């Protein structure tokens, strides 16, 4: 499988999948998935009936603030938690009726870790692999390769407890990939990693997809991670998916790119605002002293046109800034809250 471009896909209304939806190469197909926890007689609706579909070979980011229901959704899709409503086909098998076959094909890296501190790294990897029917020799070879790929080459004989937090996180990921799953679930994979290991992990995840065709479903509360790693993003808030699309398409849903022009004086600013307002798709420019702000659908295209217009009118811009919207702006627009909180 080579580079994969996922089309923008509008959110479906609940429960309206057609026959064709199940014929395509869907790796995850969930309908009305719901989980209500009972805690001290109170019902906590952690996941409120979500529909989602992940194609084979896609890297999908599940983005949302803490407590949004990401882990709960993942645990349901991994057969660790029974849904209180809805259904799902995961890696070709029904979650409810054929959990064993789901388990054979998926890998899961939990948010909570996966190894005993007293255990030796190599022993943990081999024993885990054997539960998938992989022999020792293969497990050892694959385990060492994976460790090396994630910059952990030298830890094979160390105890898990002696690793740093970031190393242990990468070991969790190695464990989740040891049986070469067709679909892998990563719950907050880069929490606790330094920027270098993070970039390295992203490269590895992309290469997994590119070389083995692995489908990746990862949760994150980091916008940059969702942005740079995912083909497609699902944004979840309060147990509901509030938006879905490629990072670019999602960002287009907010006001577009912001252009900020700084001019010599207020008179110039007034004239510049008039010219900028004529740009294709621009909103009404806001003028404040000698600064003009406006939004356009595509800053990269609009900027040369704007600058040419200013030159033609004999106006000197002393500063220009183009800011692309972040996923945080998207989240803010959708929910009125920032992801950063």
């Amino acid at each position, binding site marked *: 499988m080579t580079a994969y471009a996922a089309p923008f896909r509008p959110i479906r209304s609940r429960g309206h999948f057609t026959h064709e939806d199940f014929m395509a190469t869907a790796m995850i197909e969930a309908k009305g998935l719901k989980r209500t926890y009972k805690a001290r007689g109170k019902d906590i609706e952690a996941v409120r009936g979500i529909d989602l579909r992940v194609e084979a070979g896609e890297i999908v980011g599940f983005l949302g603030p803490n407590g949004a229901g990401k882990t709960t959704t993942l645990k349901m899709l991994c057969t660790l938690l029974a849904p209180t409503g809805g259904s799902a086909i995961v890696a070709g098998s029904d979650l409810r009726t054929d*959990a064993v076959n789901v388990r054979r094909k998926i890998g899961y890296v939990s948010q909570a870790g*996966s*190894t005993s501190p007293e*255990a030796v790294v190599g022993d943990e990897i081999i024993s885990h692999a054997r539960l998938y029917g992989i022999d020792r020799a293969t497990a050892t070879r694959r385990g060492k390769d994976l460790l090396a790929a994630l910059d952990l080459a030298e830890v094979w004989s160390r105890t898990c407890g002696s690793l740093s937090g970031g190393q242990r996180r990468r070991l969790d990921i190695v464990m989740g990939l040891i049986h070469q799953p067709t679909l892998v679930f990563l719950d907050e994979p880069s929490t606790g990693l330094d920027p270098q290991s993070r970039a390295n992990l992203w490269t590895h995840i992309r290469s997994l997809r590119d070389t083995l065709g692995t489908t990746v479903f990862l949760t994150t509360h980091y916008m940059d991670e969702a942005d740079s790693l995912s083909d497609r993003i699902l944004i979840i808030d309060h147990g509901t998916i509030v938006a879905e699309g490629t990072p670019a398409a999602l960002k287009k849903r907010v006001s577009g790119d912001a252009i900020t022009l700084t001019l010599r004086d207020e008179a110039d600013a007034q004239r510049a605002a008039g010219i900028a307002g004529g740009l294709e798709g621009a909103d009404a420019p806001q003028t404040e002293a000698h600064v003009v702000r406006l939004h356009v659908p595509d800053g990269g295209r609009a900027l040369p046109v704007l600058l040419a217009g200013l030159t033609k009118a004999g106006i000197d811009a002393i500063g220009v800034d183009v800011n692309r919207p972040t996923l945080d702006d998207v989240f803010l627009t959708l929910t009125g809250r920032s992801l950063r909180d």
Partner: protein
Amino acid sequence: MTFFRDTWIIFSRSMRLSLRQPLWVLIGLLQPILYLTLFGPLLQNIAATSGFQGDAWQVFVPGLLVQLGIFGGLFVGFGIIAEWRSGVIDRQLVTPAARTSIIAGRTLRDVVVISVQAIVLVGCAYLLGLRVPPAALLIGLVLVALLGAAFSFISNAIGIATKSEDALAPLVNTLALPILLLSGILLPMNIAPRWLQIASDFNPFKHIVEALRAVFRGDFTNPIVWIGALLAVVLVVLGAWVGARTLTAQTR
């Protein structure tokens, strides 16, 4: 069959981890030895005057063996809570491994540890003067293993169901105390008042201890032997059932 393979894999991992902490194994071995050396001599004197049948060691060692099986198994739940915290249980549950293996493998490890402790105990008792038919020793070891398995299943199940040491500790103690006091392990029940004797009749462990004492006296054909053996097997089946159910309920 995948159940046996998976159980073996889980067992090997747990066993290796136990062996990596030899101090705990050592402490586990020390306990029965302390009982023998510090409590045994005391009982020697009591046995002569009280209602025990047979030689003091023949009375005392079966009690200690049953106690080892019960207590050796009862406290293993703390270990599985720690494993759940570190994410190991979920990691294993997400594999295609047979659900029951995930608990059975750990119980098998506990049985091995308890059996080794029982062998050490019997060896020490022999040095101190215990003399019984070899078949009796074998039956004693099997019985300890069965009790260990039953209680390990139950303790692991409680651990996984509560996921809290604070809940497990009082539960285990509440379970252990009446079992111990009404079993005649340390003192013979026939010196107890009538109502206490009747209460103890409802304690299966009293009959199991009685069975093992009969065996140690060489009284293999005594019907109590069959009753004790049957009770032990029923307990293992019950424990395994509870354990398996609890683990399956995890993913509910």
